[in-house]
């Protein structure tokens, strides 16, 4: 292809990517080194409400001649990162009383990181293994059943994540139907939303349930391309079902497994919907939830853009670190193929 043709064809997508991906990333990076403040002044203000009048000394934003707040971006270096990572507190915990998890947990970032990592790595094998089993099962069904079964299996994936999380929550919270059912069976008072670990299990379960269809569809498509002659040859050579799976099918769909793992790692490291849907923020928080929480406007009408940007950057770095092994593998394979 001629260089100019190549440029013409790629230019639109290049411009879009710069505009909608690279530029926002750059802005977030810049903001993470800044405090976004209102210019403030301390004044005396007389305030009369139904409970009486009082004059108070308060700090309020200065307004310009159009009546808008004057915003000020101050460079603060790594202060936002320090405020989130709290290295001094961390090092004092570790050096003073040995390694005490409960104290490290009291720092929001590590609490969130702990949950995010557990969430990501526990759901991954479940999604891949259960998705593969499902695909293998559907693959041997008679053709007439395949369509309806595939449709039903896809349903959890179609549901909007927050809605799905809410419905699972309502099944279990308080005297939800399933809680009552469990209470009847076990003859015990059950409160699944009164401690962290039960909510965590529900959230893990929900994510696995919600993502399996994705893995299933990809694997099922992959199984259609397995060389039938190879399987038959293995069968003639006396390989049993498990051996055929291990030595022929899995190597064949390995690139797909890597692909599903890649997508799932990226997706679940950004866990957020579950925290909101299950009202879990009192017990468990994730890195993305921290960003959201910093971005929420409080009653004074301000938000922590600096710390929100810093958590975003840290989340991004985290995703990159997690993806490195998978990406390296893919890269190596590509190279081998070229040779």
């Amino acid at each position, binding site marked *: 292809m001629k260089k100019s043709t190549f440029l013409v064809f790629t230019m639109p997508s290049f411009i879009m990517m710069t505009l909608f991906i690279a530029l926002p990333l750059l802005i977030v990076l810049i903001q993470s080194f800044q405090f976004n403040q209102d210019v403030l002044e301390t004044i005396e203000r007389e305030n009369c*409400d139904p409970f009486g009048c009082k004059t108070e000394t308060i700090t309020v934003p200065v307004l310009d001649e159009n009546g*808008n707040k004057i915003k000020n971006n101050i460079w603060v270096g790594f202060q936002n990162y320090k405020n989130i990572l709290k290295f001094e507190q961390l090092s004092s915990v570790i050096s003073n009383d040995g390694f005490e998890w409960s104290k490290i947990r*009291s720092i929001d970032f590590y609490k969130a990181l702990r949950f995010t990592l557990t969430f990501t790595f526990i759901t991954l094998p479940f999604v891949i293994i259960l998705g593969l089993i499902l695909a293998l099962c559907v693959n041997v069904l008679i053709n007439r059943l395949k369509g309806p079964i595939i449709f039903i299996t896809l349903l959890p994936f179609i549901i909007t994540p927050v809605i799905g999380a809410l419905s699972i929550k309502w099944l279990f919270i308080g005297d939800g139907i399933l809680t009552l059912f469990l209470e009847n069976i076990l003859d015990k008072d059950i409160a699944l*939303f009164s401690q962290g670990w039960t909510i965590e299990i529900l959230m893990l379960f929900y994510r696995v349930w919600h993502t399996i269809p994705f893995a299933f569809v990809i694997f099922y498509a992959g199984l259609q391309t397995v060389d039938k002659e190879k399987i038959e040859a293995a069968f003639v050579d006396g390989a049993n079902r498990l051996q055929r799976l291990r030595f022929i099918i899995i190597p064949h769909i390995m690139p797909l497994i890597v692909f599903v793992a890649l997508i799932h790692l990226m997706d679940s490291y950004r866990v957020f919907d579950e925290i909101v849907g299950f009202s879990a923020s009192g017990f468990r928080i994730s890195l993305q939830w921290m960003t959201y929480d910093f971005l929420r406007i*409080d009653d*004074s009408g301000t938000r922590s853009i600096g*710390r929100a940007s810093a958590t975003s950057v840290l989340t991004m770095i985290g995703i990159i670190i997690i993806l490195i092994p998978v990406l390296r593998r893919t890269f190596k394979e590509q190279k081998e193929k070229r040779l």
Partner: protein
Amino acid sequence: MKKIIVIFAIFTSFFFLAGTNAKACELNNSVPVTSLSAGFDAWKVVTSAMEECGNFTPTLDQEYRDKLVASLESNPSQFTMAGVSASTNVSVLDAGVTRPLDDLVAKYGDSLQDNQKIVIDGKIMAIAMMTNAQHLFYREDILSDLGIDIPTTYDELLKAAKVIKDAGVVDYPLGGTFKSGWNLGEEFVNMYLGFADSFFDGNMPAVNNNDGYETLKMMKKLTEYMDPEYLTSDSTYVQQQFQQGKIALANLWASRAGAMDNAEESTVVGLVKFASAPKAKKNGKPASTLWWDGVVIAKNVTDEEAEAAFKLAMVGLDPANLGANPEAAPWLSNAFDPAPSNIGAILTAKSGAAPYPASAKMSTLHGVLGAAIGDYLTGAATAKATLEKIEADYITAATEKGLL
């Protein structure tokens, strides 16, 4: 042909309905007006009366504070008017996005009383319609069956809770709006003001002290008598617990009192009574804060729109309209007697509860409290560590905002 007739019939009935609706309001509003407010009963009463005047679109949203400032800040404003509370009024005041109402009050505000006018540095910036406070809701039948007096202090409340628990008449003796976030922060604010007077020393926090410690300890004692899922329980959840007869005592918002006798939802009609919020210390003030809710009009709208909005608001806040729904809230109007469901708020105010100390620094602290206390209640952190964390997190947030 048949179809056409049916469609025609439906259309004409719409016109007919619209006609009767317009008659309920004497004002014929021709300027489109929109509003943003919280969604509890009082706002439903006010906005539905305003809707009858035509061309009025209310947005009722319990999470309205998330979009309040941003939507009024844009030019032209996304909403002509908004419903605010004592605390969110500070955010719109600080942002300078609301307009003084003195001219409009002089022209159309004859029905207003002086205590409804929120006057900031001599200018009327908002019209209050109701007060609100968290106060004691109790099941009269259970208390009298077990021979318990109405608790006036939190120690008495805990004793009562124990008796009720031992008797086993309800699932949980206590309810509480302990949902982590704003609700939990408000519980701390209420209880702390029962022990102490001030949260701040200048702009620095002053809660890491014995009063803060006592507050946390009391909150934890209360949770022992609650549904263990208290960290997900908000006002609506506690209201439903009462309505379904699952709890016997709670400190709940006055604006929820009317719902106790709503026969469509409640199984305990006539059994829930109201009293002042209990005191934290024997001779102290009630552990509660007084709030008001009211109406502001955006600055970034035309004078014509602002005038229409104010006239509509006067229809909504008309004593005749409020008097027809006295149970919906402790209205500020003196034109009619308060409903029995408002007695708790009145008693709480009379026993000297403090107004919510709304300010930018208070909003910052409130957010920090709501996020930090959950870990103490579940036992993941000690009281000392929690108070230290509150102080440190406040300083971080306040420094970032430029308050320190």
